[in-house]
């Protein structure tokens, strides 16, 4: 924060004069609001206090917001309302949200300070301005200090939980961006080395065949049939590439079809038990599909199991998937390993992965992520 000395620009004296006046004004308003709030609380025994309290708290918020904006102007930072949002709730629910919001109590604390100290600071610094030299030097210091206290009392409630959440979001976002960039590079390389190269060869062969047509029909025929094979190979490259981006069966049928197809393709015999009415958002479908694909690949490669299951349910806005096998167990989430990759893939959707895999088996991989279903896309 800038000190009052460094912040004293050409227009600073006027800014602080305005601030003094505003502090005095807000203080006087607070003096009126305190009995209003107190009266509303007292009247809550008869119902009229409820709307009254709701209304007076709105006025208290207006005073606090004015104080916050004053701090924002003085210290040059953006001000956002720190309150919990109230949308389309009934009066009782809305009041409950207000009364459980920590910001409301910060406001009430500030109301008391503003009504006492605030009025005193505002009026005294205004009086100092009448004795010009004293006002220009002392008032800004007092106003600055008081507004700083105000900004502290009325600060946004950045709890540890929020800080932690921000940390998580930053990490998963960075990982999602990295993964996406790596994926694009892979697609570019695959196209460049695969389909593109084959089409170039195809064009070349057809050109040669055109030249040979008259002199060496047999040679031309050979080149043309080679071109046909080249076109076929290019198509098969493209197919493999598309399967890696968005498997067609997943696009057609959603998770129901996608996971069934995975189970069919798995060398380990998988029982499938899916109950999912409607479709998950496409990015979630894709993340879950590839997570299950990776889990099945792990099971086939390492577990030595002969059978397993895929289970999926959706309830309370969460999608739960569990994949198990009867193999030897001992699977762990090591950094850079397949299971760790699944964890990272799902973390981007606030999902979690748990692995239960005692030595001797069985292995159960459970995944869970929040997910809103839409009606079946027909």
């Amino acid at each position, binding site marked *: 924060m800038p000190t009052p000395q460094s912040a004293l620009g050409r227009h600073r004296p006027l800014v602080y004069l305005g601030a003094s006046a505003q502090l005095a004004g807000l203080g006087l308003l607070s003096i009126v609001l305190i009995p209003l709030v107190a009266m509303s609380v007292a009247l809550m025994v008869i119902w009229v206090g409820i709307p009254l309290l709701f209304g007076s708290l709105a006025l208290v918020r207006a005073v606090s917001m004015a104080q916050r904006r004053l701090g924002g102007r003085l210290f040059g930072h953006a001000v956002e309302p720190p309150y919990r949002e109230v949308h389309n709730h009934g009066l009782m629910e809305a009041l409950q949200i207000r009364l459980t919001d920590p910001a409301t109590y910060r406001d009430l604390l500030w109301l008391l300070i503003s009504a006492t100290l605030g009025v005193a600071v505002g009026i005294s610094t205004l009086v100092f301005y009448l004795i010009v030299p004293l006002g220009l030097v002392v008032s800004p210091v007092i106003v600055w200090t008081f507004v700083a206290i105000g900004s502290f009392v009325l600060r946004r409630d950045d709890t540890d939980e929020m800080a932690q959440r921000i940390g998580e979001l930053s990490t998963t976002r960075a990982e999602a961006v990295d993964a996406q960039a790596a994926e694009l590079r892979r697609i570019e390389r695959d196209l460049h080395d695969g389909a593109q190269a084959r089409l170039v060869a195809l064009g070349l062969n057809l050109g040669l065949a055109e030249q040979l047509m008259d002199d060496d029909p047999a040679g031309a025929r050979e080149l043309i049939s080679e071109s046909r094979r080249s076109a076929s190979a290019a198509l098969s490259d493209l197919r493999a590439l598309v399967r890696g981006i968005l498997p067609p069966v997943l696009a057609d*049928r959603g998770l129901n079809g996608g996971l*069934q197809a995975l189970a069919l393709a798995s060398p380990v015999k998988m029982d499938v038990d899916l109950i999912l009415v409607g479709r998950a958002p496409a990015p979630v479908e894709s993340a879950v599909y590839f997570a299950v694909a990776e889990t099945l690949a792990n099971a086939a490669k390492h577990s030595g199991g002969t059978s397993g299951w895929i289970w999926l349910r959706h309830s309370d806005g969460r999608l739960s998937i569990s994949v198990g096998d009867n193999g030897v167990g001992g699977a762990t989430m090591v950094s850079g390993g397949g299971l760790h990759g699944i964890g990272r893939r799902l973390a981007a959707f606030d999902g979690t992965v748990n692995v239960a895999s005692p030595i001797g088996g069985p292995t159960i991989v459970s995944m869970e992520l929040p997910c809103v279903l839409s009606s079946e896309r027909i």
Partner: protein
Amino acid sequence: MRVVIGEDLALLRDGLIRLLQAHHFEVVDAVDNGPSLLRALLQHRPDVAIVDVRLPPTFTDEGLRAAIEARRQLPGLPVLVLSQYVEHLYARELLAGGGGGIGYLLKDRISDLDQFVDAVRRVAGGGTAMDPEVIAQLLSRQRASAPLAGLTPRETEVLGLMAEGRSNAAIAGRMFITEKAVGKHTNSIFAKLALPMSEDDNRRVLAVIKYLDQ
């Protein structure tokens, strides 16, 4: 032979019509979306239908669903399904109704005209035409299982071609061996996999696919 075509890409639809007409098929109807396809199949009852999996209006598996529904109402209606991709799951759904007259091929296969026309005729005749890629999917997950591991490479090759729906004569031509040699391989395969022998080509094909699809 009367054919109905369901394909939404005009270029491919016209190409198919020209190709089939050149081989003396009669294209009675060519439609470009799922609902009209089902109507056309039920109305014309063609000798064979050639159907793209992905059709309007949903651009998902509309064509496949229309084909399965048409076969539910007209059991045994021969249908050759074409797609940019082959899915084991879809192959299973097509074969689920039992009976023959089912084909499921990648669109790329059209470029081998003789083979393609042969597949159309085979399906029209109540036979089977499975794409080598479907068979590869079936085989790849079975590799580890014991009975298949007991087959010789030659036998595995015969098994694959048989699962595609080819006759002994076609397999012999393909592998440059005599029909008699193919017959010997076939007997050996059926013995090793403990499948009931059958003189009927199509029943034999379906038994092999069913075995691989377990």
